């Protein structure tokens, strides 16, 4: 979970709820749209947004990996069937949709600090019990990662070097050596967290206020407006093809 600078770009500054709507809407929409050129345009639109949010560089490795996979799938089918058109027709809509969902997800994940996301869920009246638990998970992943590192060091100190084959050959080494010490630590940690939470007036069935309330601003309204118009246009074009293809 990296550091985020919330003032990095306009997309970063958008309310997480705005971006959440974008991700859900795009994911649902791309399953309905059938025209491959419209699908590719949506993909291109997302690439523009990624560029605009200055995150394209950071996600390029992941996207590149997907594109290689896509190219491999198409060429393999083309070689087997000896029909490149068939392979393209067969895979393109699926791969294009997959690509859109990945781009939308990455756009959200790379421009939204997890804690801010959790806070936006709280403001969406998701039950406190869920937002609190999500908050704990996000907060303690780095802590437990450090604990895991220290456990690996302890194993090394005892002369136990786990190899990749041990995961299959000796799974007991993995759960004895790693999971048990982590669980022991987790039990103590979670008791202390519960005590700390209630000692600071937390109640799992009560809603909370917040120091800095997230607000839907002008930019959000503008962004959502453009999004709705674009989506409407895409639906219209999907049902009333103006292009010959």
């Amino acid at each position, binding site marked *: 979970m990296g550091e985020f600078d919330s003032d990095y770009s306009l997309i970063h500054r958008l309310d997480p709820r705005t971006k959440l709507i974008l991700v859900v809407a795009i994911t649902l929409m791309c399953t309905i749209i059938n025209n491959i050129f419209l699908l590719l345009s949506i993909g291109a639109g997302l690439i523009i947004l990624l560029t605009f949010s200055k995150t394209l560089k950071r996600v390029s490795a992941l996207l590149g990996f997907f594109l290689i996979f896509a190219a491999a799938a198409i060429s393999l089918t083309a070689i087997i069937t000896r029909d490149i058109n068939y392979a393209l027709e067969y895979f393109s809509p699926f791969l294009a949709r997959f690509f859109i969902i990945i781009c939308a997800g990455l756009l959200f994940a790379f421009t939204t600090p997890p804690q801010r996301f959790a806070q936006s869920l709280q403001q969406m009246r998701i039950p406190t019990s869920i937002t609190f638990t999500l908050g704990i998970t996000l*907060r303690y992943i780095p802590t437990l990662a450090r604990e895991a590192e220290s456990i690996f060091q302890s194993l090394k100190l005892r002369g136990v070097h786990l190899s990749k084959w041990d995961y299959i050959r000796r799974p007991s080494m993995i759960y004895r050596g790693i999971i048990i010490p982590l669980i022991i630590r987790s039990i103590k940690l979670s008791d202390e967290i519960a005590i700390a939470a209630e000692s600071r007036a937390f109640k799992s069935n009560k809603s909370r206020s917040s*120091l800095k309330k997230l607000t839907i601003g002008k930019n959000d309204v503008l962004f959502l407006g453009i999004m709705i118009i674009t989506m409407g246009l895409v639906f219209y074009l999907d049902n009333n093809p103006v292009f010959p293809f």
Partner: protein
Amino acid sequence: MTNPALQITNLNFKYPHQENFALKNINLTIKRGEFVFLTGKSGCGKSTLARCLNGTLPQILGGEIDGKIQVLDKNTRENSVSDLAQNLGFIFQNPESQFFTVKVEDEVAFGPENLGWESNKISKNVDEALNAVDMLENRDMNVFNLSEGQKQRIAVAANLSLQPEILVMDEPTSNLDPPGAYKLFEILKRLKNQKKTIILIDHRTHHALPLADRVLIMDKGKIIKDDEPEILYDAHTRESYGIRNPRVLDENYQAPEYQIVKQNPVLDISRLSYSYDNGFSIQDINLQIYPGEVVGLVGSNGSGKTTLAKVLSGILKPQKGTLNWEREDSTFKVGMVFQNPDHQLFMDSVYNELNFGLEEVPGAQLNIGPVLKSMNLEKLQKRHPHSLSGGEKQRTLISAFLVREPHLLIMDEPTTGMDYYHMQRLVYEIKRLKKRNMGIMIISHDLEFLQQTTQRVIILSQGKIIQEGPTGDILSQDKLDTCFEGYQSLSIK
């Protein structure tokens, strides 16, 4: 208002699935504005009592309770832990497990947010609370980038933002280095002057003594002494109840003559350097450790002690310099006992723990029997390591290294959270370990413990050795004042 801050009447408490009472017939009245120091050896019931004060026991962790606890205008029977939060704040040993967010201001705002306060009011309280712990300028910082001492101050602020009149602190300085602990006590002194009622629980007495108005000593679930703080200067009282000396250096200590034969070191370190990506480094370390020698390594947090230990133990690879071992051929060279033994115990019995991974060390299995015997673990060999006490876990872990016949045994802060009684046991065990002709290195802030165990002490500062010599020379008052960054606060009174 002359009501007491806290009034406990006929309190008895029993943990779930336990036969014996952990607290027996406690009666106690604490006045408003009083600073009470609650002490006693491990397992005496002091933490249990603390956790009863705001209802954590039995409301969160279970158990059977009997009697009454009145906290200002509320009692723990009719009010939940969260309802009591504005009367009583609770801070404990490990700052890491008290946090819910990653940003300082969000953390301090967590309590007020739970009460549903308006954001202006929250903001004002956050400012005041941060100011009270001298952390206002760190308001926007990430808590992961704070030192342990700063984290603990944020934990205090996170309670102060709810404006409780009473603060209960359970060993708040155990994880802090001397400068960090000193700073925290400076803040406690200010809070005391602001008429907060403070209940501090610890078996280390040095910092608490000047602030305390009253000392309570517990033993076997009972309060057995309720007296003036000066009672802690009485060695007999301290030793009877396992309490540490308020003077960090033992006034009767007589340095033994340094008798180590400086020949054939088990380890010869020359020009060793290691740097992390973030710029922190240890540089140009030259050091020899001789068979049967116990060396102490001191310095404030961030001086490079743990990094040095990790390089010696092979966890980190040295980037420059050499480590020459006397017996280069043997496969196993260093054992290292971490501060928290929970990370290092994997198996389902003490015997299996010693046997863990031994198939790769030829002949080592033959050592298990003798080591179990000499480390006094024979009776415990079938027990589950996680069912043992802290001291027993530590002994099991040391034994798990001893069967591999290490050249060097490193112990990182072995006395954290340890009372006087258990510290003395460890001193005795280390004296016996010396006879095994290996080197022992102890990383510690605990000067009294180092006095009693080491023959030589090394002071590390900013990644370099700045002082080195026989224990008697280094651990003296004038050296404390000049050489130890931030250790001045430990001066003998």
